[in-house]
């Protein structure tokens, strides 16, 4: 399941989304969904390696060694903290991985917001760190973040698992 998601998201990202050219500032990244939907009780080292893995594959395609890998690794590192932060007292014993049936849309929006901001900020920070075009890169951050969040939420709702299936699992 996660492997299929990995492949589909990478292909969608590099073959479709990277061709979006609205003024050159819009760089939505939706492959983060892979890291977001990993099992909640996954061992932490697995989480980090998964984040690093998808980042490095995206880097391979974009020719930016280490850029996306760095951002996704940080995101994976922050994920346990973010989940704690956005859910407060809510408990997760019965939930295997984040999904829209067992968690509210508002929870997901907060979760997506935090994850995307962490990822995009670090990504664009790494880029400016190396290319010294901070103004332009900040603009990219400000424009791309809401679009990424919108796209991710849309995809999550589109591919929401069926309730009946969920019971069988």
């Amino acid at each position: 399941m996660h492997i299929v998601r990995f492949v589909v998201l990478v292909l969608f990202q590099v073959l479709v989304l990277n061709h979006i050219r609205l003024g050159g500032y819009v760089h939505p990244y939706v492959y983060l969904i892979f890291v977001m939907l990993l099992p909640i009780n996954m061992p932490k080292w697995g989480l980090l390696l998964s984040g690093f893995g998808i980042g490095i594959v995206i880097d391979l395609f974009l020719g930016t060694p280490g850029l996306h890998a760095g951002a996704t690794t940080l995101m994976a590192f922050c994920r346990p903290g973010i989940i704690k932060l956005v859910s407060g007292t809510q408990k997760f014993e019965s939930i295997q991985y984040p999904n829209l049936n067992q968690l509210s849309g508002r929870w997901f929006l907060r979760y997506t917001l935090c994850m995307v901001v962490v990822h995009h900020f670090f990504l664009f920070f790494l880029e400016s760190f190396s290319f010294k075009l901070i103004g332009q890169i900040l603009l990219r951050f400000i424009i791309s973040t809401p679009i990424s969040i919108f796209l991710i939420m849309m995809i999550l709702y589109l591919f929401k698992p069926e309730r009946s299936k969920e019971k069988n699992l």
Partner: protein
Amino acid sequence: MYNLIRFIQKHHFVILFILLEVICIVLLSRSQNYHKQVVFNTTNDAVGKVYEWGNDIGDYFHLKRTNQQLAEENAMLRQQLSVVTDTTTSTYDIQGRDTIYEYIPARIVNNSITNVNNYMIIDKGRVDGIEEDMCVISTDGIVGVVADVSTHYATIISLLHTSSAIGVRFLNNQELGTLKWGTNNYRYGMVEDIPTHIVLQPGDTVVTGPYSLIFPEDLMVGTVEELLQSPTGDLNHARIKFATNFATLRQVYVVRNLYKNELDELKSNFKEE
């Protein structure tokens, strides 16, 4: 020793995180070097293959325009050919020694124009005779330089790259300058280091300069858009419009200089002395 293992066990999350981040930053900083930029095997055959699948679908939508471009080019070549056959004797040998450039047609399978540093991947590689440092042109003008070659694919550093620098010449007054990208717009580039006494008019043609081992001379580069006076009164800059439209580019030619080895040899001899 035992304590060390205990420490690693306890903090493996943080340690692994730091380790991975260090790997990323090392990779990233190593990639800043101009030619090693593509170390990371952007030209990896697997990556090229995936882009090619994606393109096989996309290509159908561009068939009409590609056809038209090729037809226009054909017409132009025919015209040139008629000039050649008119002015020379009938013994003109088209395979003659005068040809020092060979053109290898290639298709772009991946192209970026919005990044800070842009690359393309083409579907020709080592087996097709592509080598590093060959120049790449389109029917309209120059495109870039081959940076990395794998068996069936090659990566091109496009003109839209912070470290691209190409010697150019203004056609109407023969003055030389250096072309850099300099803008963040894929339509425009900057010619730097223009002496102040030179007057340029918008629309003046810019072609490749005479001293490059990579680019043949007199290839179309673009037209002058505006001359930017330097505030300090030294060398001026000029904004030029690229003849190549990088956004719609599909078909390119890789130019192989048949005497490149000879030139390289001369150059290396010179260095040794």
